[in-house]
């Protein structure tokens, strides 16, 4: 008798944990950035407490005789508080290692940006303005600025590359699930090596640019788009198509990397290096930019030639 549903709403809606906060409307241009960067005073605690209040009010004022069993209601409250404690702890641990806000910035993309960026990666020769635009001292999200690096395209391109590699190996009857894992970890290891070498180079030359680790991961992940294009042409048009596509995507990618990194590396001056030693610095920075660009075709060839035999 005490378990009969008496209220207008079903039982489980009253007991649901605080739902995740609704995504901000995409019409408002800066709302995404504001809630992620300056949302600290309101914070997750604010959202959860407001959800708690809503849940408490509806369950308290609505149907009183659902919680006739005090043990059940006490267990429910304990369980939901434990769940929120666990969530807070996990959030705290994760934000110790990497800033989730910074990561959210890289995934704030929309379809228009992805289309324009893919076109830019394949044909960057007509693009005029390569500056990353700022807004109130923080870089604009990729949604509003086509020059901003993002992590969505590299991630998706990486996964697509792995699937395409599996398909290409299957066409050549060399497929097995272990090979897929091997291909994935090889590509991942090359990304890690490239990012570490770039970081080491930037540190040794004391280049105080605002390139964070995630930026470097993004820029070194853009080559997967070129790799996908190359492998597709190699599969469709044979060996000649493979080399033509390799040349095209290598040139486009080298141009893209040089133009993008030139803004960040070459134009970041030290505070007061006006002496004769300053002449050596731009040369070394130029070397590092050119070396990064020259590394891309090599790695594209290395990672795709065995797929298009």
């Amino acid at each position, binding site marked *: 008798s005490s378990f009969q549903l008496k209220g207008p709403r079903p039982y489980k809606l009253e007991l649901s944990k605080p739902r995740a906060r609704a995504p901000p409307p995409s019409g408002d241009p800066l709302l995404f950035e504001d809630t992620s960067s300056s949302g600290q005073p309101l914070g997750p605690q604010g959202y959860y407490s407001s959800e708690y209040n809503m849940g408490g009010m509806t369950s308290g004022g609505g149907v009183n005789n659902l919680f006739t069993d005090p043990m059940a209601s006490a267990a429910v409250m304990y369980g939901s508080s434990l769940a929120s404690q666990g969530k807070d702890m996990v959030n705290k641990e994760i934000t110790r290692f990497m800033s989730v806000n910074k990561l959210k910035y890289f995934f704030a993309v929309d379809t228009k940006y992805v289309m324009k960026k893919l076109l830019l990666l394949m044909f960057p020769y007509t693009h005029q303005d390569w500056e990353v635009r700022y807004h109130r001292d923080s870089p604009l999200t990729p949604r509003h600025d086509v020059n901003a690096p993002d992590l969505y395209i590299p991630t998706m391109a990486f996964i697509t590359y792995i699937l395409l590699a599996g398909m290409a190996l299957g066409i050549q009857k060399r497929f097995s699930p272990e090979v897929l894992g091997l291909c994935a970890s*090889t590509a991942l*290891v*090359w990304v890690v090596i490239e990012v570490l070498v770039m970081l080491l180079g930037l540190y*040794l030359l*004391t280049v105080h640019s605002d390139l964070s680790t995630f930026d470097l991961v993004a820029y070194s992940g853009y080559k997967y788009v070129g790799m996908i294009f190359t492998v597709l042409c190699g599969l469709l048009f044979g060996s000649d198509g493979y080399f033509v596509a390799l040349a095209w995507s290598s040139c486009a990618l080298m141009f893209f990397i040089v133009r993008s990194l030139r803004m960040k590396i070459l134009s970041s001056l030290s505070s007061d290096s006006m002496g004769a030693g300053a002449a050596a610095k731009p040369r070394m920075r130029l070397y590092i930019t050119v070396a990064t660009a020259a590394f891309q075709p090599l790695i594209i060839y290395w990672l795709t030639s065995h797929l298009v035999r």
Partner: protein
Amino acid sequence: MAFTLYALIQTAILCVNAIAVLHEERFLSKIGWGADQGIGGFGDEPGIKSQLMNLIRSVRTVMRVPLIIVNSICIVLLLLFG
């Protein structure tokens, strides 16, 4: 060259071990890369060599204890699983 993630971890451990093994007085000072020879000027340009020396010295200081732990784990695992 097919890398597995395990190969990457092994490479990283070996490289860090190699940097940690460079002894301060017996080796680095002899070739002019000691910690006390790199202060140079307090100007804006540390230069590549002093950056490298700083890097080596900080890697040796920071990674001393974690390397002991990681190397012991590696030894035990290699003994157990070949």
